[in-house]
């Protein structure tokens, strides 16, 4: 995956171990463009729809 966002978002995600090249799973998302939950390793985080939009993934 790659992150197409600004410095702030990249840093925030990096601190949680989510960074370019890492494998992530989309767990689920809320209705009406609500938050998206992603999992990386044993960490689950909820991020806004707009942030999720900036994370580019290569589907495996």
């Amino acid at each position, binding site marked *: 995956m790659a992150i197409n966002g600004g410095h702030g978002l990249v840093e*925030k995600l*990096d601190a949680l171990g989510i960074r370019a090249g890492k494998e992530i799973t989309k767990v689920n998302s*809320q*209705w009406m*463009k609500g938050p998206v939950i992603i999992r990386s390793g044993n960490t689950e985080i909820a991020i806004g729809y707009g942030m999720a939009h900036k994370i580019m993934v290569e589907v495996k």
Partner: protein
Amino acid sequence: MKILLTGNPNVGKSVIFNRLTGVDVISSNYPGTSIDFTMGFVSIAGKRAEIIDVPGIYTLDPTCKAEEVATEMLKEGDIIIQVIDSTNLERNLNLTLQLIQTKKPMLIALNLFDETEHIGISIDVKKLEQIIGIPCIPTCALTGEGIKELVEKIKEARSSDFVFNKKERWNEIGKIIEQVQVMKHKRHTFSEKLRDASVKPATGIPILILVLLVVFMAIRFLGENLISYVFQPLFENGWSPLMLKLSVFLSNHVVLHDLLIGKLVNGAIDYGQSFGLLTTGLFVPIGVVLPYIFAFYTVLAFLEDSGYLPRVAVMVDTIMHKMGLHGLAIIPMLLGFGCNVPGAMATRILETRKEKFIAATLMSIAVPCMALQAMLFGLLGPYGIKGLGIVFGTLIVVWFILGLILRKIIKGTSPEIFIEIPPYRIPYLKGVIKKVWMRLKWFIKEAVPFVLLGVLIANLLYTFGVIQFIGKIVAPVFNHFLGLPQEAVGALIMGFLRKDLAVGMLIPLNMTLKELIVSSVVLSMYFPCVAAFAVLLKELGVVDLLKSTAIMLLSALFTGGLLNLILSVTLT
């Protein structure tokens, strides 16, 4: 000596802190609560050392206020204990490597070590110690395993001489993980299935509604039974005879008698109407409100420590955005249901001025605290859904509509949600008890004196005719616009000080259902109590608080007037 306890959020740091110190501490499962740090003492080899629970952080490059505070605090420690979530070693080591660079003596507690087995991870602790050169102790804070070893090893804390390339931090971590951790193929556990189901909209929203229903019922059940089987009998059979004796004793001192005991109703004490310092003044906070406060905080503590709240935040995020807030704003709202004071303090977890302003204003107006609710249950309970339903329904509608309006008129931005969803954890019972006890103590210390002061002031104001005077002035607005008798003015004035007491003052007025509903709604909305107001002043600043207060008064008058109109037609 100063020992700092640090680590990522949700790794069980506060539970370890509780285990080490035994001092009162608030420990919660959602990110952001421990922005105020907690301190305690631990004895090491006969010497007393200070131990500080630092707010949870992911990195030493601060990305938010809590992390800034934490980073500053770390500089002052003599020894650092990093608590690590062993099921999440890779992410936690990121912080470890940053801490190593501070060159402080360190110790690592590999917490939740028992859980690694369940999910098929095995960690070679000896190897890890060797590589990073810091003592590592496997712990399970919940059962207390490893805590003794941790204390014994504090004196062996040392700074690491592990060298690594800073720019390649994640690669370095990858290399360490390869050497110390083996991951077996893991099964999808029940906890994980529950984890997914409870936040997926199709199943999560019904679960949320169910949870809220259970929470509400549990609070009422606990509160009501405590009142009718413990507190009411205690007051009726234990306290009343004493008060009657005192009443006889004071019969020659009319002023003092009225102040302490109040009026006797048919020769007996009536806690709802006597209105003396030692009768109503004690009964309202202790006999009615305290049981509900206890019930509320007990249920809330379990919710907090189980890890459910961040999921609630995610599910309500979309709707909160309609009001210019994001999901995390549900936390000040929920806390506000207990008491608006901690609710107001919790607005500080929100990042922008806009969010803080909206959250604080909405909470002050439409979130009735437990003290107010307890009295409303008593006042309107007999009318069933017709009474309580209309009051609470109105508040919900006001909350939402006012939110929509505020989002439009308040300038600023509302950032997107970004929170970690921790796995479900079994709450640590001793931690829950401590937390409830701390909050009860706080209530008794802060609220009871206010109620007593309120009774005193109300008595004085009545004696000198001040309330009757104000009543005459505002009577036109009261009678025609809100449809309330002017005697209700006294209650509204008291509402500035204490809401529970204000509702208590409505009881002897024998109002109609319509009048009761309108006065309850206006009383809930027009102003938070003084205590909450003081906190809001700190959180919002003078200018914003004045704006917020104007909104409170206007919306209370408007809603009260509208309700009066509607109910005049529909309720006969």
